[in-house]
């Protein structure tokens, strides 16, 4: 398959997947009387047809929030602002902290700290969010001092510290473990032994010999990192009540009338666009690391 063919297949492929994916809730239906499972494919394909027709009339870019009809274009701007703020910061900070601490963990012998890190890595993201919130509540109950908002109750007092903390901690944790693992593996290679026997300093070997050989693994695992970052986004926007892209879709997907197919399609496409932007940003960052380390 030529490169051109793959690229030309890419956009229609993504569109098709998003279309099919968004129609899942209308396809799987339970019979209201005996509860038998039905696959209503026709329902799904009608939705796709309606969406495509609605692009020209503009109906596909309107949705109901409660009983108000709103324009998708007007509402999504704020959502993109909130979501991209957390995603860009989470991606950049998570990766930087992850790489640096990962290097540290590969050489340190502080076992208990590693154990703690592994355990928090095994816990699902929503647990970390709820535990952070509980700590704030506990401290507030004991001392009367509210360190941070546990959620955004209105737009004037948004919760910032906790969402930022969770958007950095969770991907960084994955990155630390990943970098430390590959780093340790690299340390067993013969060229490290050789560099050591030439009398090079430890710091020099780590940053000039070992780390450049770990960066390709980070690049290969970038999509996994992004998956964790963006999967976490759904959870923390919901739990902290941040008005980002995913919360907009989730709260309105099942409107007063019925399932709002066009809103879900638009929302997922926006989400994928943000994914692409953050992905390119991270690739650029790794390129920068490579240039600095192998200079």
């Amino acid at each position: 398959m030529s490169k051109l063919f793959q690229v030309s297949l890419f956009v229609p492929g993504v569109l098709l997947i998003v279309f099919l994916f968004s129609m899942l809730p209308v396809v799987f239906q339970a019979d209201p009387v005996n509860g038998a499972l039905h696959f209503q494919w026709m329902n799904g394909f009608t939705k796709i047809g309606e969406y495509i027709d609605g692009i020209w009339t503009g109906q596909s870019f309107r949705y109901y929030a409660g009983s108000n009809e709103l324009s998708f274009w007007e509402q999504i701007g704020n959502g993109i602002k909130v979501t991209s703020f957390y995603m860009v910061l989470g991606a950049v900070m998570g990766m930087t902290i992850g790489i640096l601490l990962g290097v540290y963990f590969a050489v340190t012998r502080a076992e208990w700290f590693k154990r703690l890190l592994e355990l928090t890595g095994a816990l699902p993201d929503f647990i970390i969010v709820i535990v952070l919130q509980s700590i704030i509540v506990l401290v507030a109950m004991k001392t009367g001092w509210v360190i941070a908002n546990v959620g955004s109750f209105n737009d004037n007092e948004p919760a910032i510290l906790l969402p930022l903390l969770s958007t950095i901690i969770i991907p960084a944790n994955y990155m630390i473990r990943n970098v430390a693992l590959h780093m340790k593996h690299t340390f067993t290679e013969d060229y490290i032994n050789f560099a050591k026997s030439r009398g090079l300093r430890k710091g020099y070997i780590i940053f000039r010999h070992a780390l450049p050989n770990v960066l390709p693994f980070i690049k290969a695992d970038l999509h996994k990192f992004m998956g964790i970052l963006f999967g976490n986004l759904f959870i923390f926007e919901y739990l902290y009540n941040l008005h980002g892209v995913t919360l907009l879709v989730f709260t309105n997907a099942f409107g007063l009338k019925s399932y709002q197919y066009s809103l879900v399609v638009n929302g997922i496409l926006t989400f994928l666009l943000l994914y692409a932007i953050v992905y390119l940003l991270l690739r650029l960052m790794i390129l920068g690391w490579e240039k600095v380390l192998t200079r």
Partner: protein
Amino acid sequence: MNRALIAGLIITLVMIAASFFGQYLAPNHLEDQVSVHYTVDANGQGTLVVPPVSPNAEYPFGTDKAGTDLMAKLIAGSKYTIIVSLAVAFARIFIGGIVGLLLGYFGKEKKSRAKRLPLWNVLNGIPMFIIVWMVMIGISINPVVSPVYLTIILAVVMTIVGIPSVASTIKDKTMVIREKQFIISARSIGAGPLTIIRTHIFPHMKESFIILFVQEIILILGLLGQLAIFNVFVGGTTMYFDPIEYVSRTNEWTGLIGQARSYLLIYQWILVIPLVTYIVFIFGFHLISVGLESIYKEKYSKVSHI
């Protein structure tokens, strides 16, 4: 044997035992509900008891808003949590393992991840729980069918969604082993592919399979929790209108966490106790996985030069 493995095994076995035999030992049952009542003690001091009752001697874990003992609820729901997580993990490993072994043995050299169709990479961006949620949301709010039937549907969906990642992990490992010399010599004396997979490749991957199984359990428990945050509970969700409230039909652990999410600021035990139980359960499996990995590492890994 090491400490992490033993501690993990003890934690999980105790919890599983408590789940299946706990109902005979627990002080209260699911049917007994605390109602609003007024008692006067010997000194003439009156107390008004209104559920939710905070944890005390009679109700060690307290009760929920309806007055049901939380311990009884946890015991009733634990069967769903434990059986679903173990069964789905086993099904994923079994089916994904067979697919992975076959693909790894017969498959071509794998393309590097950067060269793969970018389409598959985009799919990685959509988290797994969203896929399961999209399938289940249409059928699990106020369902007509029995909780067990709906649990089976959820289990099947979660199994199907998880097979590809298991298969690709096993496939990668199989590809490394099939290049080893003993495979070539087995082939040269005329062993068929299936014989080689069964008697030469699989025995080398037993440890990987066991570790993967434990890690899948942890992932599945996480997935159940994420679904519960978005009101899809194992066995179905009962939705009450006015005020809108989502209640788990089976009292499954993640369901108890999901439905108690609003108890962060008041009556915290309704949220904290299921949450702690759930974390301890995950912690048990995590210790097992850490213990197994360290045994494995001692056997095979090389020594660091730094």
